[in-house]
């Protein structure tokens, strides 16, 4: 081999047999990714939960009268993401989806937002639906969806340059919360957008929460003409519902 031509060898593999990944290593990576997500979730809640426990123990120590709270009405129990996924797949088995968000709507319904990757159509489908308690079991009812196309790097760069308003999508979903407001869901691909300001014709502003680690946002809006609302991205982080 000529002295100067070491480059060709460096372009090839270091060993005669390339070091391939084993099934065991893939499983360990998957497990650690899942654990990492659980850890993040766990850490996020440790401090507020500990604080709440401290306050509660302080209150009970002084035996204050408002500790005698009336018993709350029995409410539907929030299932784990895995259980929700199993329930949804029972009713609609043809999609590979992940759970993006769950929250109690009222005593009998849980709002569920999901993501479905459609590689063949190069789109992501975002579903909104409810888990409904009937005869002591949960049923999935899909209520609405929005679709976002996969975008290329060039398109993304152009959109970022042009402004993020054009990248907002939204759809009204026939689903109401306990106060009778209607659900609207939408997407924003801009990673800097943390919430959406929705302004009605009287200049009342409603904040839509963007779900962390997702493009999806949602809000419950008072019943009005859909065209009366204007949507603008915001960097403000919404911490409350």
């Amino acid at each position: 081999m000529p002295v100067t031509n070491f480059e060709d060898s460096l372009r090839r593999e270091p060993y005669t047999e390339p070091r391939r990944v084993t099934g065991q290593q893939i499983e360990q990576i998957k497990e650690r990714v899942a654990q990492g997500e659980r850890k993040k979730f766990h850490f996020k809640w440790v401090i507020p939960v500990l604080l709440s426990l401290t306050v509660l123990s302080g209150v009970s120590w002084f035996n204050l009268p408002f500790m005698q709270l009336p018993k709350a009405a029995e409410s539907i129990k929030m299932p784990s993401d895995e259980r929700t996924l199993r329930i949804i797949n029972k009713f609609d088995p043809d999609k590979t989806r992940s759970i993006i968000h769950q929250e109690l709507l009222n005593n009998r319904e849980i709002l569920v937002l999901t993501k479905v990757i459609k590689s063949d159509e190069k789109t992501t489908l975002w579903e909104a639906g409810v888990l409904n308690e009937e005869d002591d079991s949960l049923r999935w009812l899909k209520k609405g969806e929005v679709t976002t196309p996969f975008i290329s790097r060039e398109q993304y760069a152009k959109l970022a340059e042009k402004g993020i308003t054009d990248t907002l999508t939204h759809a009204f979903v026939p689903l109401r919360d306990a106060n009778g407001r209607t659900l609207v869901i939408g997407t924003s691909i801009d990673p800097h957008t943390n919430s959406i300001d929705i302004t009605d014709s009287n200049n009342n502003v409603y904040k839509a929460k963007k779900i962390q680690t997702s493009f999806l946002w949602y809000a419950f809006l008072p019943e009005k003409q859909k065209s009366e609302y204007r949507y603008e991205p915001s960097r403000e982080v919404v911490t409350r519902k």
Partner: protein
Amino acid sequence: MKTAGAANAAQEDYLATLVSAGPMEIEMIIAKYWTDIWNYAFVLTKKHDLADDVAQDTFVQAFLRLDKFRGQSSVKTWLLKICHNVAMNQLKSAFLRKIFPVAAVRHSGQSASAESVFFAKTKLDEVWENMLELPLKHREVLILEIKYELSIADIADFLGIAEGTVKSRLHRAKAKMRMKRKEEE
């Protein structure tokens, strides 16, 4: 070739729109990039078991931070960058472990015998052997340019150093390699 290129581009676009990876995406990405990432980890660490750990950590970190990937660089470059950071941290902690011996946690789960069986069957290329004798800062720029085909500007950006520094390191690395090859012959 055109089809493969288009498929690659579509895959990278697809990753740019993902914010978290499911089991299918995880397997697809690992299968595609494992060898490249393992080779780079091996260049940085010079140890098989450490390269296994670094490659695994790289993918774990990448999947946990998938929402940060927005397609500004290729998936491979993005993974290489994570690999570089993971390897530097591993090397630092390996240095500390040498000074303060503590029990190291092994993530790879590969038994030493399985490794020895694999590496008994395979042989390290002698040019690679020469390259691994170079100091880290030289072998890193060399491999990023030659094997991973990054430009001088990309390497500078990747390592957070000036382009002039990259050029001079490359120049020295190549000169040392030529000298080593001459000695071998």
